[in-house]
Structures are given as structure tokens and as C-alpha cells.
């Protein structure tokens, strides 16, 4: 039986992580169908149909799908589920909110946040904030699986031409009402997908000092991250938080400045390709995961770092 991928989108376009989840879905079975639920989301549905790994697109539209409420989405997927062996979605807040609601209706024990497909019924997933990896085999007939997007490469986004089939909407769930969404807008690359992330911790000592991080990030075309300690101290807003309770990032370069490296922070960044740590405490745990460690006072090191960057003829963006 085929795999059903739940597309994440904003009614205008697909969200990037749908491509990563599509890759994982195609590793479970080559027959991947994708469902897109929304309102006036024809353009996003078309993008979905152009993913070469997707063989068929199912599109469901209604006003009550505009805000991605799990209570409205779940019945649509549950109805479709009989034709599929697996239901797959990315494990960001969209998928985390939605998938268990589907799994419970299907009486299936969900496998959350997988980082590797070992076989169609066996998956690798991190537990204890990534301090251990568990190999899990699902014995349920239908398998509900969420994907850690940063562990799978995005699939090709063009070249496909899957047919788009329109389906009827399910009833509206009246006990949940969407009020508003406050999206944090930024010209910077998104934290979850940026090639370079520059993060500050409690060592920054104030929100004002985060300007130093911003300067480096601007120079490198990087996203700005932060440790939980920096967020809790009010230096920067929570959407910048990297770690078990924030975002998991896997950039090519992660620069941790004034971050000691609590277990929960390491869980969010230690899979980065190259890690740089700048900290004045030479014993800080962050150095145990850093490829390049610099034991220095960050208030001296950051201006020097800018100076050295300015000396370079070119910087990869």
C-alpha cells in the first residue's frame, strides 16, 4: 500500500520541510501520495504535484481549513487512511500537533520524530533529547510516523506532474476557534533551514549585547539562534531558541558564543556539520562538541572576529 504524506503549507506555498518529509516518505515506499488541506491553496497544491517523488495529490479545501486546526484536519486524514499503510508528516509544531490526533483515531501507536528509515516498519529516533538513539519497530497495521526534517535532505521540487484529485471536506469542529497568528517576520534566513547559525547565550549578558551577534550574522548571511538561558533572561525572543525545547538545527556552520552547552541546548545543534564555540570558560561542555574552540572573552573576540571577516575577500553566502 502507498504512503500518505501530509503537506505543510501556508495556503500560498509549501513549507520547506514538506520536501524533507517527502524524502522520508519515499524511503518507506516509492508510492507516495500527498494530501494538502487548506483554503485557496491551489498554488501550494500545484507545487506539491511538481515534486517528482509524489505520485498523486489529494486536495481538500474549505474555509475551516484555513488555519490548520488539528481538530479539523484529523478527520480528513482518518477517512483517507484505509487506503494507506503509513501516514507521514514532518515533526515540527504542525505535525506534532496533528499526528497524534490521527494516530489515536486509528488506534495506532505513533512513532515520533524519526531520523532514519531502517525499513518500512523500523525507524531510528532520538530519545532523551538526543542523548540516546532508539531503533523502534512498529507492529501496528497502519503506521503514523513524524519525521525530523533536518535529518532528511529535501526532495527535488520540480519535474513532477502528479494528478491532483479534489476531495470533499469533512465537517467543521466547532469547539476550537482560531483567533490570530503572530508570525515573526525577518529578512534573515529561517533558523531551521539556514546554512549558518550564530547563537548567543547567557554570556551575552544583555539584550543590547545581542547586537554583536546580529552584526556577525549579517556579515555571514546567517540566522540568529540563542540558548534557553538567553531566552529566559529576556535577551531575545523564544522563536530564536535552539535546543530540545526550541528548534533543532543542522547548519553547515554553527557558532556558539557565550553558550555553556547545557544538555538541552546540545540536543538542538550537535548534528551541525561544523561547530565553533567561543567561551571564556575553558571547561564549558560546549567545547566537547566543538570542532573549533576559542577560549576567550566574547566581548574581545567578537569585534576581532568582525575585523577578520572584513579582511576576507569573499564570504560564502
Amino acid at each position, binding site marked *: 500500500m502507498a504512503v500518505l504524506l501530509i503537506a505543510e503549507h501556508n495556503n500560498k506555498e509549501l513549507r520547506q520541510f514538506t520536501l524533507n518529509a517527502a524524502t522520508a516518505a519515499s524511503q518507506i515506499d516509492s508510492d507516495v501520495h500527498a494530501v494538502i488541506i487548506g483554503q485557496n491553496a491551489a498554488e501550494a497544491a500545484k507545487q506539491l504535484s511538481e515534486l517528482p517523488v509524489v505520485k498523486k495529490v489529494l486536495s481538500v479545501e474549505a474555509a475551516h481549513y484555513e488555519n490548520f486546526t488539528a481538530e479539523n484536519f484529523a478527520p480528513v486524514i482518518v477517512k483517507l487512511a484505509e487506503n494507506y499503510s503509513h501516514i507521514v508528516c514532518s515533526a515540527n509544531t504542525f505535525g506534532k500537533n*496533528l499526528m497524534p490526533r490521527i494516530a489515536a483515531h486509528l488506534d495506532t*501507536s505513533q512513532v515520533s520524530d524519526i531520523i532514519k528509515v531502517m525499513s518500512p516498519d523500523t525507524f531510528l529516533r532520538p530519545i532523551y533529547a538526543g542523548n*540516546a538513539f532508539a531503533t523502534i519497530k512498529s507492529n501496528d497495521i497502519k503506521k503514523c510516523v513524524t519525521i525530523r526534517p533536518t535529518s532528511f535532505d529535501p526532495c527535488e521540487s520540480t519535474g513532477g506532474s502528479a494528478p491532483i484529485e479534489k476531495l470533499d471536506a469533512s465537517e467543521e469542529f466547532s469547539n476550537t476557534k482560531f483567533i490570530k497568528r503572530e508570525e515573526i517576520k525577518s529578512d534573515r534566513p529561517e533558523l531551521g533551514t539556514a546554512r*549558518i547559525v550564530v547563537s548567543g547565550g547567557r554570556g551575552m549578558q544583555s539584550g543590547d549585547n545581542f547586537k554583536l551577534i546580529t552584526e556577525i550574522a549579517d556579515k555571514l548571511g546567517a540566522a540568529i539562534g540563542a540558548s534557553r538561558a538567553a531566552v529566559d533572561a529576556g535577551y531575545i525572543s523564544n522563536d530564536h531558541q535552539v535546543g530540545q525545547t526550541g*528548534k533543532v538545527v543542522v547548519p553547515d556552520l554553527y557558532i556558539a558564543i557565550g553558550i555553556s552547552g547545557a544538555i538541552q541546548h546540545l540536543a538542538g545543534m550537535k548534528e551541525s556539520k561544523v561547530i565553533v564555540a567561543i567561551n571564556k570558560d575553558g571547561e564549558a561542555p560546549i567545547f566537547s562538541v566543538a570542532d573549533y574552540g576559542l577560549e576567550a572573552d566574547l566581548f574581545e573576540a567578537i569585534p576581532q572576529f568582525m575585523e*577578520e571577516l572584513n579582511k576576507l575577500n569573499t564570504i560564502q553566502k
Partner: protein
Amino acid sequence: MKILVAVKRVIDYNVQIRVKEDGTGVVTDNVKMSTNPPDDNAIEEAVKIKEAGKATEVVAITVGEEKAQETVRKALAVGADRGIHVKVDGILEPLAVSKILQKIVDKEKPDLVFMGKQAIDDDCNQTGQMLSALLNWPQATFASKIEVKDNKLEVTREIDEGLETIEINFPAIVTCDLRLNEPRYASLPNIMKAKKKPIEEIPASDLGVDVSPRLEQLKVEEPPKRKAGIKVANVAELVQKLKNEAKVI
């Protein structure tokens, strides 16, 4: 208004866990255990709502082995009125826990059920959503702000793109983010008082729920270790290494 709060006993968040050599799990013997951190936020929020005069009773529940009762006792020490301990040994998946909680909800008829958004041991992030599905109740996951209105809640949720606000009618489920509040510490007099508060013990077998695992944990292993890095002497060397050795800038 009655609030039921589910709490779980997990390895303390400050403990560096160790994987068992035989690959069957992580070492839990002689390891410090405590309440799952966001479950503390769930209890705190329920108690605050009661203190504000908007709830009449806060009931703390846990599902698990004998020692799991410690988490209920702790909830009683910070303000919950009474406790329920559904006793069951062995591995419990979120689906089984949500089925047990459903039975307790049927019996207790709370207006709200609170719990942490995720347990920090298995990191599943499922139980609250599954319980709402089984009950067909509204769900507000990853809550960072809760406002009690007439028979409904306005909840601010932490989502990847920022913040989302929704309104949910009673009865409803809320899963709590760490940012929701600052859990209080239990004072010694309150810890003593909590010892006298009642905890009802219910064997899971009395509830008629099949809790047998559906998933097989084939192996638990340590994540691949990063190869040891180097310390650089100064910023100039760092930038040179990033440019010419790692080739990332």
C-alpha cells in the same frame, strides 16, 4: 470547575543519562528521578487558576509503577487537592496512557485536563493530543499563556512561525510549554500537609484497557560521538581554519 492534571515520573533533567551496555535501554537504577518539567508547569497553572477563584478542585493523576506516586505527592505539596495513581508496571506507550486517562476522565468528569507538552524521556509529544482525539475534545498544545473565560479558554500557543492564539470551549485539553509559568517550590509545611491529602490507587487492570505495547524497542544506543575538535589560539586562526580547512565561510 475541575482541572485534572497528568504528571509523569522521568529521569531528572539535570542527569546525564547512560545507555545500558546490552542496548536494552538507559540506566535508571540509582538515578535521580523527578516530575517531567513541563508537567510541573501544568500543575502550577492549574493551581494558579484555582487560587484566582476560577477553579474549585485540582486533581493530580499519574500512571505508572509504585514509585510514580512521588510525582502526585509533589503535585499535592504545591497545591493540588487530591491525587489518583493508576498502577501499572512495564513500558507504557502514549496511546495506552491516553486510553487510561480517558477512563479516568469518564469517571471524574473534569472541565479541563492539563499536562506537559512532552515527556523528556521518550520525547514522544503525543499523550495530550491522543486523549483529545479519544474524547473528541478541543486541544491547545504547546500553551505559553492561558486565559480563563466563561466556559472557555483563550490559549496562546508556541508554534514554529511565532505565536498562535485560539479559543477552546470546555471541556478541553491543554498541553503546557515550559514558558507558561514559573513553577513554585513546595514549602516544608506544605510537604507535610500533602502527606495527609488523599491519593486514590487504581490498578490499571480494573479499567479494562489494553496497555500492551505496539512498538518494539529493538535497540538503544549512544549517538555517534563527534570527533574531538581543536582549540584555536586566537580569532585570526579561527577565521583562517573556517575559511581554508572547514571551507564554510
